């Protein structure tokens, strides 16, 4: 048993390391949250349910988190340097459009504080993911 202990430790660590960053993320979900978007130059506040990480810089809709919709995302070939070279602005916005979504700059409420971020909105189910996280997920799938 003693001689097998290091192997046992290795077997426990290896799968965890292979799972990647997504495994390490812990989400807090807010059922009746609020999202601010600018529409026709006016601020609109909509009710939404979403999940975020402890720093509030990753955002995913609650229905996407619950259904694990990120697994269904079809990866897209996306070279960050080439896209920056060609002049596109924030890469996640272009990636969002390539994946059939609509990017929006938003603010969402967390612990009574409004935090700025963005989202890639997918119709008709209105699932959304922030475009930075979308980029990271796409990178992991490629």
């Amino acid at each position: 048993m003693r001689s097998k202990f290091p192997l046992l430790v290795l077997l426990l660590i290896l799968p965890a390391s292979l799972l990647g960053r997504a495994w390490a993320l812990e989400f807090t979900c807010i059922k009746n949250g609020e999202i601010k978007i600018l529409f026709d130059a006016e601020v609109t506040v909509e009710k939404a349910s979403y999940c975020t990480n402890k720093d509030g810089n990753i955002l995913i809709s609650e229905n996407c988190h619950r259904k694990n919709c990120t697994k269904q995302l079809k990866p897209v070939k996306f070279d960050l340097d080439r896209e920056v070279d060609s002049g596109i602005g924030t890469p996640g916005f272009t990636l969002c459009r390539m994946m059939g979504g609509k990017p929006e700059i938003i603010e969402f409420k967390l612990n009574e504080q409004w935090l700025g971020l963005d989202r890639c909105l997918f119709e008709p189910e209105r699932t959304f993911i922030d475009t930075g996280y979308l980029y990271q997920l796409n990178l992991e799938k490629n």
Partner: protein
Amino acid sequence: MAQRASLLIRLTVLFTFLVVFFTNGAAENRALASDDSCTPVDLRGPKLGPVRHQDSLKWCASFAAADLLSYRLGQKISAVDLPLHQPKYLAQKIWDKIVPPKNQIKMAKKGEDPTVLIKESQQRGWCLEKDLPSEDNTLGWYASLFWEISLLKYTLDAGEPFEKERACRYLNTAFPGLNYETALKTLEEASLGTYYSALANQSCKNRIHDSKLIMEEKKLNLLRTNKEEIRNAIDQQLNKNNIVGVNYHSGIFKDSEAISITANHTGLIVGRRLNPVTLTCEYLIRNSWGRSCSYYTGYECEEGNIWFPINTLMNNLGNLFYAK
């Protein structure tokens, strides 16, 4: 024989260049990595505010320039206003050449030199962000707002009918400080080369001026033999609590070992620290892609500001700029 000799000479020159480039870089990297002068500096705060979001515009230079001005002037300056007076990069010039819409969008996305943007707008003054917002991408795509306004201008000039509601939406979104009638009249009366500038000037009635502002630039040479001089210049400014703009290559976002002699992106150095784990000196770069930290592989990131080892930045730096 002569051909072989010529080829041999060319190969020798190329080899020498590569040796000087990489060994010089390596020697300086070692010096930079073990440097003791890395006192902590953090210039983030209310003058800069949260990291901005450049949406679908290739205007990182404008956002960096606007941030630099905001820090200097103590008021948030509009990023979008800066390039609207540079017809070289905007739809007006495109209309002159009657370029198809898809190419217009590409050209409308092209950026500008941040120092040129600041210097050329100094006499006119700088617009406040609240008068001409830079981060409203309602209707899906900020670049498309300009395209739609360009199409409207074309329609007006041709005397063709247009959808009033649609025109109102686009004009109101891009220039929310103007009522529809004023915006439409300004668009009608302005020439093809100046309509964006005219709309921006109507929006920005209370421009901020600073005639004493002088911009300084320093460039890393091709062989990178002046890295120490460049680093000293950055540190001098940080020690005076002055932020420094940098043009660099985005390859460093995913690879800390990347080396590039071209720059394709602009940001600001707003801090410095000694990394407590790696014991290397790092600069804090303020980007303009919002608060997300998901773009930056393997770096510590705080609210869209990224800590880069000095080596990594210096190996991919083009030039720097700051207000004296």
